């Protein structure tokens, strides 16, 4: 467990699946050098196969007794999808528009399909997913080389590329499959929560760019922060698949607002909801009932009285309130460590200058 923990809250009621977050992340980090197929941030349709394909069935995480579970390393063509391109250059000479490979799979292959029968009870919603920067990371526990570490100052989980040997046990160990193998460098890479931005007081690119303003970022111990209020005060933001036992630090406001179902004659069934509660329970646990009750209660309160702190937070008025980061906090750490600038991460700096006979001190994780 780190001293402090950064967390993100995503309000699923407002996610429109526009993939702006995905593109923000991709252009910032993953459009090059073997990362092309990776989506550190992706938005998937639920119900659906997700990314990588059927990630919830690929193992990893911990059982009730706390033992790390074996998992599977997904296949790049079959489970992630290899990025393809189109022959834009040739079109002016009259060529047919075609992809450079015959695509067989890719992220969002089943986008917007969802489940149920159109038009009576079909439904879907979007789940944006990044690394959960877990308090009990499956990837970290699986690594036989101590190449994955959790930063003390903010709980960000990072791969030490100097130590990583590309064994991929971390991928098997992560139940969210949010750590990836880079075939070009033969090492693992993952979402870094934009730590170089965070250290300067800026939110991760995915959160900054979100047009639906669904993402809140802050320290979980910052009681004035909106993240704290959503997670701990109102308890309306819940971790995804907490049954994997990794104690994830990305929280979701469950989709409360779903349209009603239609009957055989196409009439609205009053009081019905298209999103089955058992699906939400599977994703967010039993807590989801209480969270949705609170959300509805506060929504009504706001309608009746015009006042609700929770609704004001979820309306997401100002970025400065949604993103409670602290550049000064990191500057202080840098100063204490005698480093002039971010990144204030010792292991990242060490990686650049590793010397011979450098005796690695094994980190005992308690």
């Amino acid at each position: 467990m780190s001293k402090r923990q950064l967390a993100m809250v995503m309000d699923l009621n407002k996610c429109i699946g526009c993939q702006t977050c995905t593109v923000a992340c991709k252009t910032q980090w993953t459009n090059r050098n073997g990362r092309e197929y990776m989506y550190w941030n992706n938005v998937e349709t639920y119900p659906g196969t997700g990314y990588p394909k059927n990630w919830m069935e690929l193992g990893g995480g911990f059982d009730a007794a706390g033992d790390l579970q074996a998992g599977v390393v997904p296949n790049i063509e079959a489970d992630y999808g290899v990025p393809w391109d189109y022959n834009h250059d040739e079109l002016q000479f009259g060529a047919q528009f075609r992809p450079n490979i015959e695509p067989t799979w890719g992220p969002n292959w089943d986008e917007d399909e969802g489940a149920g029968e159109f038009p009576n009870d079909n439904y879907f919603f979007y789940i944006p997913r990044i690394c959960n920067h877990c308090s009990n990371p499956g990837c970290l526990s699986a690594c036989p080389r101590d190449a994955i570490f959790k930063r003390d100052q903010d709980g960000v989980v990072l791969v030490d590329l100097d130590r990583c040997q590309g064994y991929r046990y971390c991928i098997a160990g992560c139940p969210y499959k949010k750590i990836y193998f880079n075939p070009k460098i033969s090492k693992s890479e993952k979402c870094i929560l934009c730590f170089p931005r965070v250290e300067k007081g800026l939110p991760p690119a995915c959160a900054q760019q979100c047009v639906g303003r669904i993402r809140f970022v802050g320290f979980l111990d910052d009681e004035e922060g909106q993240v704290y209020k959503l997670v701990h005060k109102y308890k309306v933001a819940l971790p995804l698949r907490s049954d994997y036992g990794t104690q994830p630090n990305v929280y979701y406001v469950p989709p409360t607002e779903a349209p009603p179902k239609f009957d055989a004659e196409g009439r609205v069934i009053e009081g019905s909801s298209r999103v089955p509660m058992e699906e939400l329970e599977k994703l967010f646990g039993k807590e989801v009932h209480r969270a949705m009750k609170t959300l509805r209660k506060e929504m009504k309160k706001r309608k009746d009285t015009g006042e609700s702190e929770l609704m004001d937070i979820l309306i997401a008025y100002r970025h400065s309130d949604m993103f409670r980061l602290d550049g000064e906090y990191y500057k202080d750490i840098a100063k204490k460590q005698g480093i002039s600038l971010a990144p204030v991460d010792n292991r990242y700096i060490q990686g650049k200058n590793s010397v011979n006979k450098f005796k690695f001190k094994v980190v005992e994780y308690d």
Partner: protein
Amino acid sequence: MIKIATALLATTLATSILMADSIVLVKKTDRDVTKLTPESKAWEHVKATTVHLYPQSAITLNDKRANAINRGAKAKEAKVKAIHDDKNIAFLIEWSDGTRSVQRGYKSDEYADGFAVQFPVEYKNPEKLPYIGMGSDDRPVIIHLQKAIEEVYEPNGNGDVSMQQNVLSKNVFGKEAAEYARRVGALAVRDYQRSFVSEGFRSMTEIKDGSEKFYADMEYDANGWRGTLIRPIKDEYLSLKGVFPVAFAIWDGEKLNRDGQKLLSGWIAVKFSDYKGKDELVTVLTAAAKGDVVHGRELIEQNGCTGCHQISGLSGPNYAAPGLDNVGGYSTAAYLRESIVDPNAVVVPGYNRNAHPNTPWYNVVDGIRQSTMPPYPLDEKSLDDMVAYLKTLKSEAK
């Protein structure tokens, strides 16, 4: 006279079958051994020693498919040869492998064949060699690794961030873009060979400053792989003199082998052919176990060893302690004995304790790892018997 000689030879042969792998004799040459490749004719003039490599079964890793494929994996025989000149020593290791697995291209779940050679930094006391699984505290090892991996880039190599950008971000077109791609391509490290210093497998650290010079190569033909490892006899990490121990490991990419998912040998004694001094190490590493195996097995059961350790055929819990199925193959008798009498002598930073928090193999007290296994200060005879039994725990070579 001839009869006696034959009889003597017969007994030597008989004992050598019972004994651990015999020793590797390093032949002296006037030529430069750094020029040797796996294909060199010179190897034909060197006597081969057969060594056995056993499946690593002390810990189980968490790759479901790899675990299924490697369940009940068998040991393998390899042939080792060695030559030295004034400055360098060269090893050749040959092993069978039905498939040539090379890790290349845009793949996420393919693994490479490979081999590694391990040397202890200190080997004066043959009873206290480093732990075979990549050394132990204050008993460091140097490991040279060669893997059949093509074109690996090293992102932290020279910190040249400008060469890590997507071509679309470079504002270059046509020929300039092609030139950029060529320069980025030239940054690729063509051969995946690395040196490591390690004091227990979680502490293994790559030596990246080029201070550990070595040459390695591997070639595949219909029979399998031939790998060469050539390194200085003496450098700032190692000084190989007289008789010294060495260990080998091989990986089969087809079987999703990597890291601990591998076959490894025990410490093998290597002797410079012109060395005439003491060879206590040879005695220790090749001595046949002298105890009563049947009684040893009874003692293992009576003392409750299988309450934590897994041994095939005897029931034991998951995760509680290192599995012992091949411990007789890759551990020395001295190590086994030491571990029974004083489990704290070697406590390696093994797999992350957080993976199985209810069954920690050690606790950290004042920064020192304390084994959760209590010492068993048994009488000499009992220890001999237990060690003799443990030495029988190994899978047979196919």
